[in-house]
Each structure stands twice: as C-alpha cells, then as structure tokens.
C-alpha cells in the first residue's frame, strides 16, 4: 500500500539518439515541400477518384486491390476537410483550392518516413551491429525511388511500412520467445504481427507474399519447437493455438472488417453499380433500389417482369423484343424464320417487359391469392407490348449458327409450330420446391421441346452486336444444354409487379407506368462481402497493357523509369528513378549472399566449419528473411508484366541485405587488420558515392529545382531512360 510514498517515483527515459535522428531525417526527406507540385501526379489520378467517391459515400469497385489502402488515403482527405469535388481526369491537372493536397499526401509520406527507423530496428533485432543497422537505414533514406513513391497519394509506401512493421514485430516476438513466453510484450508483438500482416494484405494483395513468408518462417520455428523435448505437449498446444489465433484468425477477421467498414461507408449507388448483381444494387441507396423498393418478392403466374442477364459483362442487358422481324436472308445468304426479333438490350425500355403465363390458362393477370412459380414449373413468356410468345426452334441464330434462333412467335400458317414452353430452373435454389424470387433467384429457361437454354450469345463478350436490322442490339440464342454452366445462360428478375389488367390496351398503360410500393431487401454482410470480393478478383481486364509496363527482368537493372509529372512550362519534372548505386549493390549483395551460402552449405555438409556457429545462425536467419522477402515479392511477377513500382517492396528487402553481407565480409573474411581498414575505407567511399548519386538525381525526385536541357541530358545515364526534354 502506498509504496510510492516510500520510494520516490523515478522515470528513467532511454532515448536512442540514432533512432530519433533517423526518424527526423526520414520525416524531413519525405515531408519537405510535400504539397509541391500542386497538380495531379501520375496514379494520383487513379486513387484520387476513389478518395472523392469515399467523400461522397458513393459505392465503387476497384479491381486493383482490397479497400484498406483507399480508405487510409480517404482518411487523409477526411482529416484535411476534402469535400470530394474534384474531377480526376488527367495527369498534370492543377488542383483546385478545395483539395487539401498536403493532407492527402501526408499519410503515405509518414509511412515512407517511418520505414527508415523500422529498417534500423529490424537489423538490430536480427542481432546485427548498430553500425550495420545505421547503414541500412541510411540506404533506405537515400533511395530516390522510395522517396518519390512516398511523397504522393500512392499506396506503395503504406504497403512497405506495414510489411516492415510485420517483419519487425515478428522478430521482436521471436526474440522474446526464448525467455518470456506468454508475457505481455510477447502477446503484443505477436498480435501486432498479425495485425500488420492483415493491413499489408488489405492495402494491396501483394502483401500476401510477405504474409506467406512470415507464416512459413513461424511454421519453421514452431517445427523446431516440436523437436524440443523440454516442452510439454500442453504448452506446445498453447503455443500453437496462440500463433493460430494471432497469425490466422485475427488477420482474417481484420480483413473482413475492412470490407465491413468499406460497405458501411459507401451506401450510395454510383457508376460501378452495373457490374454487381441486382440484389446488391438494390441494397444501395438510390439507383436500382429506388425502382425495386416494394416489389412483390415471389414471381407468380401473371407477373410482369424484366429479365436481366446475370453475366453483366461488358454491359448489362435485359431480354427484349420489338415488332421488327428477322430478315428473311442474312448478308451471308443463310435464311431465318422471319419471326419477331428477340434481343438483349442494354437500356431500360418498355419493350423489356414480359409476362409469366401458365400454359394451361388464358389469363394474363395474377389471381388472388397469387400462384407462385416454383423451380421446375413450365411457363410461357409473353412479350408485354406485342403479346407474342417467346419461342425457339431449330433454325440457326443470326450470329452464332451453331445455336438456335430465339424469336417471338408469329403464326404464319406454315409448317412451323409454336414451341414456346419453357421450364424454369432456379440455379441457386436451396430445395427443389423453391419459389422464383424477384432479384434473388438466378434462373435458367430450358426449352421443353429442344432442351436448349436461353442465353445471351457469346458475341456479347467480344462486344459484337447485331447488324442494322437488329438495331445493334445484342444477340440472344437458344444454346444446347450440354455446353455446361455459364453466367450468360442465367437471368434474374429485376423489375416486377403483379399484372392486373386483362385487356391489352390497359396493360400497355400499366406497363408504361412506373413500379411502385415499398419494402427494402437486405443482403447480409457476408453475402455482400463474397460478391464484392469475387468481383474484385475476377474483374481484371485482360489484354490492356499499361503504357508504362515493363517486364520483371528490367526492374533489377532499372532499365525503365516512369515519368510522373512534368512542369507545364519549365523543365522541372518528377521521375520514379532509383539510386543506381544502391540498386546495383543490392543486386551484388543478393548474388554474393547466395553464392557464399551455397559454398558454406556444401562445406558444412563435409563437416568443415568456416564460420563460428552463432555467426552462421545469424547469417542464415538474417539472410533468410531479407533474401526470402526479396524473392517472394519479386519472383511472382515473372508470371505477368507489370509496371515498375511493384518492385519497391522487394527492393526494400534487398537493400536490407547489403549491410548484412558487408558486416559478414568485414567480420569473417577480412582476417588481417590491414584488410579490415581497407575494407572500411572502401565502404566509406561506396557510401559517399551513394550519397552523391542521391544528390545528383534529387532534382527529378523532388521536382525542384528545374534543370536545363543540358543538365537533363547529362542525367540520362542509360539509353532506355525516358527523361523528358522540352523542345526549344
């Protein structure tokens, strides 16, 4: 009790001056002149639009990655009081006064600055000397490409920050493991590992690579623990569960929570609505929800419906018909049935309305009580305006001759009977007696006579449409069932109301009138999440190549640069261009590390030990993390071409490897004192060259000062670099 009265309260503060100094330098280098240039720089044009949409709470889908990164950028905008009113249309456009440039760029810059002390700490935790750690931090500090990338509203620096934080906290955790398992700080660092991993993944999917690496490393460490006979089975189990919780359960939960926040923030409908399903659209405020609110849920005989194709790519479209018929002969000489055209039409139109009819009855209104249509029922679909029946028969379709033509049947009194019975199959049914539901049910129409399936033709994917006679609308065909499942064969009811008027005239009026009534349909969070996640993963536009894309092999040698911004009048410009000396030495370090490791390994296998055991352990663990980090972040990109900046995380790891190799060389391979001092002198010389190159290129890193033409020409050290020189 009251022990503090007996002893004085003493606060001992330990300040690592190195760390403080590095942080300050990092902040200065990243934050200096942050709001210059006051213009849209490179991919800011891309991320900026999302920030604006966040500010306006409008829903969007971005296929480049999960939403956490965008949300962080938007947080900057929110703190800076950005109202989202800026047209992000062109790189180099001047920002208007309402855009808080500084605040928008602040978070990435802070993240970039903090990478410097993080690098220092990582090397310290890897048991390297403070000198080596300082070296690593300075290399990161002087790396021009990292500076450029973190000074703008881009995601890489945030990603790198979280990656480094994850590595650091795992190392802290691992070092605590030996003496104080399950202590407070042990838990803290373990949980922080999981949290920062999920943040990294949440910023960009690239973070997955580092996450996997850390999982593998912790698996390996745990495998060693299994072999430790001093640990009881119970404590092993506890260790296992703790890791499982922190490294798997928490990241997954965090990842879900990003989406939860994302979906909560964005509740208004917007430009990307149409790629989502009708159900999703209906859950957003405005847009489709305004129309569909209050529709009856169950489709019944006599219902008036519009049918939307589920595929929705490249455009959404609705089943449509109009009074025009297929031409008797097509341009290529094939014949048609000359029946009324049925197409898929990308716009809302009164001709998109169809009526569900019971083949056994004549009436086109909903009886009271309504008789719902269930899975497996056979129906006829009547086109609302022309009252013709949806029909398909063994006639080749206009564009896809291997499929059947779909038409609205006209009785020409020739030997072509009506074949207008369709069986309703609910694809996403839970039981075989499910009722056909508005928006929620995805249905397939199987033709009873020919078992063909109603399908929006494959030509739709390539954007080809019917010729003039079909008003450039999209083709609809009957596809033979055997071709398997495809989304273009599935339809859902979007607009729906119960038909009341038996007379054709009244019905036309009814069809033209807007739908009314009011109930909202709520999707659960998990359903929304799955759909959004799936859309993000599959939305990749395939064959468009970015103007600045380069192959992965160009990255290590830095054969390409990216011009980020050019001053509208002077020669001032900003490029993503690395520090040549650092890049080259990082490559050399990686190569040296690999060769030396192989050499040691083979020698050790023959029981020849060149270095003491603890130095070897250090060499393996430090190099394993850095080289491993480089490899997992770099090698996957050989599978596809990308722009330069995905290399930056890999580069960061590679830079961390340089001091490790250097320290090892200095400690173990320089035997005599003379060699050692020569080695130190070399390092000093090399370091000054790094500094020199940094200074030389800093004008194109910061965009200031403006350089003259000759100076710019001098900067073009490689022919493949694309430095912009204004013609006089």
């Amino acid at each position: 009790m009251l022990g503090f009265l007996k002893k004085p309260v003493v606060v001992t503060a330990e300040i690592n001056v190195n760390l403080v100094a590095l942080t300050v330098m990092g902040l200065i280098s990243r934050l200096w002149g942050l709001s210059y240039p006051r213009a849209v720089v490179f991919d800011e044009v891309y991320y900026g639009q999302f920030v604006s949409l966040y500010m306006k709470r409008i829903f969007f889908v971005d296929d480049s990655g999960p939403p956490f990164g965008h949300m962080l950028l938007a947080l900057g905008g929110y703190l800076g009081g950005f109202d989202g009113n800026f047209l992000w249309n062109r790189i180099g456009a001047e920002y208007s006064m309402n855009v808080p440039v500084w605040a928008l760029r602040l978070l990435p810059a802070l993240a970039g600055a903090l990478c410097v002390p993080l690098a220092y700490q990582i090397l310290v935790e890897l048991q390297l000397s403070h000198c080596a750690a300082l070296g690593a931090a300075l290399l990161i500090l002087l790396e021009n490409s990292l500076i450029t990338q973190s000074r703008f509203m881009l995601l890489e620096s945030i990603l790198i920050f979280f990656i480094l934080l994850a590595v650091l906290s795992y190392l802290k955790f691992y070092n605590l493991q030996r003496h104080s398992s399950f202590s407070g700080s042990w838990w803290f660092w373990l949980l922080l590992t999981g949290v920062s991993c999920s943040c990294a993944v949440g910023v960009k999917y690239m973070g997955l690579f580092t996450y996997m690496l850390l999982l593998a490393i912790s698996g390996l460490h745990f495998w060693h623990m299994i072999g430790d006979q001093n640990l009881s089975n119970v404590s092993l189990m506890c260790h296992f569960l703790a890791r499982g919780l922190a490294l798997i359960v928490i990241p997954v939960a965090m990842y879900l929570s990003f989406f939860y926040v994302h979906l909560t923030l964005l509740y208004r409908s917007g430009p990307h609505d149409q790629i989502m399903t009708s159900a999703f659209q209906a859950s957003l405020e405005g847009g489709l929800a305004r129309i569909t609110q209050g529709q009856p849920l169950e489709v019944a005989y006599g219902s008036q419906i519009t049918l939307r194709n589920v595929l929705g790519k490249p455009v959404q479209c609705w089943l449509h018909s109009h009074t025009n018929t297929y031409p008797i002969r097509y341009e290529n000489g094939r014949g048609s049935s000359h029946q009324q055209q049925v197409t898929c039409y990308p716009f809302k139109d009164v001709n998109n309305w169809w009526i569900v009819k019971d083949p056994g009855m004549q009436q086109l209104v909903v009886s009271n009580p309504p008789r719902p249509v269930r899975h497996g029922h056979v129906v006829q679909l009547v086109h609302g305006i022309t009252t013709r029946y949806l029909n398909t028969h063994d006639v080749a379709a206009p564009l896809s001759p291997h499929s059947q033509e779909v038409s609205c049947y006209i009785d020409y009194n020739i030997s072509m009977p009506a074949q207008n019975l369709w069986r309703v199959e609910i694809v996403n049914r839970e039981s075989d007696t499910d009722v056909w539901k508005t928006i929620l049910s995805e249905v397939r129409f199987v033709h009873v006579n020919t078992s063909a399936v109603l399908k929006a033709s494959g030509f739709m994917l390539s954007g080809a449409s019917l010729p003039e006679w079909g008003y450039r609308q999209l083709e609809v065909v009957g596809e033979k069932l055997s071709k398997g499942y495809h989304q273009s064969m599935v339809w859902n009811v979007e607009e729906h109301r119960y038909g009341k008027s038996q007379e054709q005239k009244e019905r036309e009026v009814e069809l033209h009138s807007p739908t009314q009534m009011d109930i909202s349909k709520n999707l659960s969070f998990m359903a929304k999440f799955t759909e959004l996640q799936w859309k993000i993963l599959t939305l990749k536009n395939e064959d468009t190549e970015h103007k600045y894309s380069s192959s992965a092999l160009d990255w290590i040698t830095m054969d390409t640069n990216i011009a980020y911004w050019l001053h509208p009048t002077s020669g001032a410009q900003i490029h993503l261009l690395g520090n040549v000396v650092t890049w080259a030495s990082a490559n050399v370090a990686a190569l040296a590390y690999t060769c030396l490791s192989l050499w040691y390994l083979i020698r050790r296998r023959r029981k020849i030990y060149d270095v003491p055991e603890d130095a070897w352990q250090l060499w393996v663990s430090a190099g394993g993390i850095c080289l491993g980090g480089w490899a997992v972040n770099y090698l996957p990109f050989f599978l596809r071409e990308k722009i330069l900046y995905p290399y930056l995380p890999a580069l960061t790891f590679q830079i961390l490897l340089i001091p490790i190799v250097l320290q090892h060389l200095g400690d173990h391979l320089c035997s005599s004192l003379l060699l050692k001092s020569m080695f130190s002198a070399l390092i000093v010389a090399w370091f000054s060259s790094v500094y020199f190159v940094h200074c030389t290129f800093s004008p194109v890193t910061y965009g200031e000062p403006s350089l003259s033409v000759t100076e710019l020409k001098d900067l073009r050290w490689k022919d493949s670099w694309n430095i912009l020189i204004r013609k006089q």
Partner: protein
Amino acid sequence: WDETHFGKMGSYYINRTFFFDVHPPLGKMLIGLAGYLSGYDGTFPFQKPGDRYEQHSYMGMRGFCAFLGSCLVPFAYLTVLELSKSLPAALLTAFILIFDTGCITLSQYILLDPILMFFLMGAVLSMVKCNSCADRPFSASWWFWLSLTGVNLAGAMGVKFVGLFVVLLVGLNTIYDLWDLLGNLSLSLVMFGKHLLARVLCLILLPLALYTTMFAVHFTVLNKSGPGDGFFSSAFQSQLIGNNLHNVSIPEHLAYGSVVTMKNLRMAGGYLHSHWHLYPEGVGARQQQVTAYLHKDLNNLWIIKKHDLDTADLSDPSSPVEFVRHGDIIRLEHKETSRNLHSHQHEAPLTRKHFQVTGYGINGTGDSNDFWRIEVVGRKAGKLIKVLRSQVRLTHVATGCILGSSGKTLPKWGWEQVEVTCTPYLKESPNSLWNFEDHINPKLPNISLDVLKPSFAEILLESHMVMIRGNSGLKPKDNEVTSKPWHWPINYQGLRFSGVNETDYRVYLLGNPVIWWLNLVTIGLYLLIAVSTAVALKRGVQLTSELKELSRIMLRGGGQIMLGWLLHYLPFFMMGRVLYFHHYFPAMLFSSMLTGITWDTLLKFCAGFLSPSTTARKVYGGSVLALVLLITYSFYLFHPLSYGMIGPMASDPSSPMAGLRWMDSWEF
C-alpha cells in the same frame, strides 16, 4: 476426336511432308512408325472426328498406343512394390489402373497421352529401381537403371513438354540423393565426383543427346514442303523439297515495282500482312489492320513504290528498271487492298509504348506518313538490296520509329494474328528486322540463289521457339467453356470422344468415379497421416521396428509419389493455354500409386492393434480384398463409358447407364 490430329501427323511422317505442331516430334514419329510397320499407307485424310476408316489399316497405330497404355499397369505395380515392399499395395495400385475407365479410354486411341505416360512411368520406375540399387553403386544394374531413367526422360520430353515435370521430379530426387552422399564422410570427394559425373552423364547428357537425335531424325524424315512451312524462317524453308524457296530462282536485287513478301527475322516471326478489316473502335485510329501472319497467303504481298511517284509510271513495261538502294525512301502498297503501309502517333493495340501501324489511303495515294526509309544492316548508303540475304530495317520518316513485330497475339478482332507496331526505341533486335522472301518482277532476270544453309543447332533452336509460341497461342476462345484444373481430381466433367446423339456409338472419357474419389480422399488422408507421423517422430515417440518401417515407407516412398503428383498437377493452375481433362492423367497415375501405398500402410497399422496376429492378418487381407472388389464392381458399372454406349442418354431411365449419372455435369 484428337485422333484427327495425331493420326494425320502420323500420315505426314509416312508421306514425309513437313508440318508444324506444338508438341515435340517423338510421339508422332512413333505413331508414324507403327503405322508404317503395320502397313498403313498414309492416305487417309483424317478430316473430322467420326469419319469411317473404311479399308485403311489403322489397327497398327491404335494397337501400338494401347500396348504402351497397358504397360502402365506393370510399371505402376513394380514401382509401388519397390517403394513399399508390399505385394497387396502393388496389387491394389495395379487394379486401380486396370479398372479405371479413363485410363482405358485414353489408351485405346491414337493419342500422344499413352506414349507420354509410358515414358513417364518408365522414368519413375527406373528412378525408383536405381534408388534401391544405391547400396551397390556402379554395379551393372545400377548403371542400367540410371541410364534407363535418362532414356525415359528424353522420351517423355520428346512426346510433350509436360514431360518437363517428370524431369523436375527426377532432378529433385537426384539432388536429394547427391546431398545425402555429400554428407557421407566415409565417401571421399573423388568418389563423390564420380557419382556426380555418372549422374550428369546419364541424366543430363544422355537425354539431351537422344532428344537432339530425335529432332535430327524428325528433320531428315520430313524433307518435303508441307503445311507447316510458314512458321519457319526463309533459310529453313529453303531446305524443304517443293517449297518455293527450295533451289529458288528469283531476281536478286530489289527493284521498284516489284511484288514482295516480307518476313520478320525474329524466331517464328510472320509475314507482313494486311487485310480488309479495320482496327476496332477504341484501338488507335480506325484504319485497316496490319499484322504479322504465319501462313503463306495472298494478303502477304506488297508492292514497292517510290515515295514521290505514282503507280502508272512503273507499270509501263518500257520504263527502265530502277533498283532500290540502301537509304532510299519508299512506299509499300498492299497488293490486294491497295493501301499504303502507314504509321502515326497513336498507341499500338497491345504494346502501348509503340505506335500503331495501319493500312491507309485509297489506290495507293496516301500522305507523308506512308514514307519509310529502307536500310540494310551493316551496309553503306547507295548499295543495292539483296532478296533473302539482306537484313532490312524500315524507318518511318515522319516519326523516326522502326517497323517491328512485337510477337504478341492480337485478340479476336485481329484474327489472332501477331501484332505489328512501329517502335520509337531504336534498339537493334530481330523483332525490327525483316527480309524479303518472295520477289516477283517480270522485268528482271531470275537468278538461282543458294540461301545460307542454317546449322542444325539453329534449326533446333528455331523449332523450339516456334513450338513455345504455338503453345502460348492456344488461348481459350471467348465463349468456350473450358476445363479448369480444379475440376479434374473431383472428376467433374469428362471429354466426349465420339458420338453425341442417342443413336451414335458414344465413348466418353471419364475416370471411374469410385476410383477417382477414392484417390481424392486418399490424398487428404495421406497428408493427415504424414503430418502426424512426422510430428510424432519429431517429438521423439518411441516406435517399434515395424512401425518405424511403416513410417519410413509413408514418408520416403509416399513423399516421392506425392511430390510427383504435385509436380504434375499444380503447374496447370498457372497455365494460360487451353486445358483439357486428359492433362490430369499423369498426375492421376501418381495419385493411384499413392492410394495403393497409403491404404496398405493404414490397414497394416490398424491391423497391428489386433491380436493375435492371425486375426490381424485376416482382417488386413479381408480389407484389401474388399477394396479390390469395390473397384472391380464399379468398373462393371461404368465400363460402357470406355467400351462405347449405344442407345438413349443416361437421363432416360431405359438407358443402360441410367442411374449412373451421379453428377449433373457428366454428359453421357
């Protein structure tokens, strides 16, 4: 079905006409040989699936494939026996393979897969045999199995590039082996060197030698011009009898007014081509497409004109012939459409950094963007330009970019031909170099030319480039429903081999579902057992000697097989080309062997708890027998899949297959 491809290629060998295929030649050569020996004369056209063979003798080729296919059973039997030292395990595996409908179907027809799987299993078997000879290194049997491994590797690689995966498997196994030897301090470094050399010799040099021989035979046998010519360079084509470049006689120097074809100098580069189709909207300017096309075609013809003169002057027969010189500024007019080769500062369709190349102008009148400077590599200004031999560069006068082919395949609107761009980066590469191949000018005398003969190494390299390009060009079409790798192990969807309608004789490639699902379960089971065994060993649990032996079989033997399965399955997830169900069959072989080993070990282990040992043995024997009976019965149910079904589809209750369509995705 695919017999149309491979049977046709067999006929090509017999007729000695040159063709091109994306797979290496060994498999088709063997088919051709089998056909030749069995008296097939190579005249059947193999035009579309379902054609009758009539009087042609095809049984030789089919019999050959079926024989190789049936060899898989003893191979798998021996491999498992060697790995597990347990007869029931080996028998179980053998029964699985005998009674799998998929394996039967696949080996009954003229296809590459039975041949590939034969070599693949051969390689695995000899590798395993060689491992068990490891205690007697350098003995005769050791050498025999080691070199046999090499031979089989060459065979597997020579049939399809998928053979690469088994090479990887053997490679990893060898590295592991060598690493073991290196750690054995009783072995001197000299001895280790011998081991290393022996492996390099048998597993690298021998297969390479065989592989190259195979190509040598391929190119010697096929010495007549055929449908595959256009894929290869001009120099290569000049070696084929019947090709228009063989013993060619054309005007030697390029002149104005000549009609020419231009071939890109990159490996597997195409002819400069244009046709009556415009670039679609949104892809640069809406002008006529210019592409590179691998086949010979009338649309590859271009007319060389002076930049400032019109057509009329040159067509006049009396006017003197004027030669094109290095550094001249010319215009190239497409002969069929009379449009000029044109470029401008619009993005190229795929390579966005380059400029778009189009056909522009009407009847040869265009604008200044149609002017190109023609230059020969390594020559001075004013020299004449030689057909075939000169390597020519075309520089666009207005923008300074160079005409090149990027090697990327255009999407459907470009008929999947190769993109042609104008690159502003002045890097020297074969992509941006062209040579003139055909040259027609009635005013000039024809001179017989001997084109430089390419060396064998060049031919080999070139044919590989062509194959790789061909393989990556097999992209799935837009609306085609393709098979996904995850479909395969669960036997989701088969392949229709012949017959669609109710009246046809239908053969459907689908694995025996009982066997395949057993295999699938076993993989999970194996992982579970292996992990728990490994953890138990690591925790230092004391095991009896029998259990130790069992766990060794599980971890070492099963591990090898598991690795084989992974290597033959996972890479398909990363492939962009069209995938088919039958690609899974090599992996399925491994999976079947794993099933044999795992179930045998598991049953032994469980029976070990029973006492006395006679009951244990009875229970063990009974369970193995039960498994075999289950497999046999399922085969009885599903055998019509591979031996042919006639009658109504399975959805009809009167069909013999009624009630067997367990998954909706099966199409029989």
